[in-house]
């Protein structure tokens, strides 16, 4: 168990509303990631962070923002949720380094946008 929790675990929301998902780690790992997982696409990177207040975009960042004010917390915000953002969202952490580093994943958040 890598000490990663995600909240909420399930959420149903309506189109147009803002939604914030939280990832919390107890491992003091430098890198944190947000992915979404959809059938036929595998896991796709939304945003990642390489330190407090240091974030960068992934391949599917449109419509999402992130914040990291503390090492242990990484927040993902859907600014105005759309049905295309219905997905399973996974947070991951890694210690960082020149490749070969392990990612540890959280249990996921199932989001349904009606």
């Amino acid at each position, binding site marked *: 168990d890598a000490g990663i929790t995600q909240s909420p675990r399930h959420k149903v929301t309506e189109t147009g509303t803002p939604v914030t998902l939280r990832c919390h780690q107890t491992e003091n790992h430098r890198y944190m990631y947000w992915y979404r997982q959809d059938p036929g696409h595998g*896991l796709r990177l939304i945003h990642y962070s390489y330190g407090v207040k240091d974030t960068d975009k*992934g391949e599917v960042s449109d419509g999402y923002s992130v914040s990291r004010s503390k090492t242990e917390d990484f927040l993902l915000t859907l600014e105005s949720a759309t049905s295309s953002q219905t997905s399973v969202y996974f947070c991951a952490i890694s210690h960082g380094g020149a490749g070969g*580093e392990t990612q540890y994943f959280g249990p*996921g958040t199932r989001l349904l946008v009606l």
Partner: protein
Amino acid sequence: TQLLEQSPQFLSIQEGENLTVYCNSSSVFSSLQWYRQEPGEGPVLLVTVVTGGEVKKLKRLTFQFGDARKDSSLHITAAQPGDTGLYLCAGCFTGNQFYFGTGTSLTVIP
């Protein structure tokens, strides 16, 4: 455009059979990882390969990294029902960004 292509996408075999899953790319990775994911859970790391041509074994699972570090394979010998799951490969460039393949869903029938 998918950076990593996995094949096959679905695989259903009988217990005791052997199988190979492939992960291919036109890009060179600094490392490549294989994960296994069960329904309702996050992926769990099986192995990381770093050196071109590297072969790693984990019980009945054999992982190989291509010489050019663009592709990898996962071979399972004498598959068991407990091997059932979604197998994902992920390539890493420098900078700690990971790119995942589309996954191979394996079902082992008792």
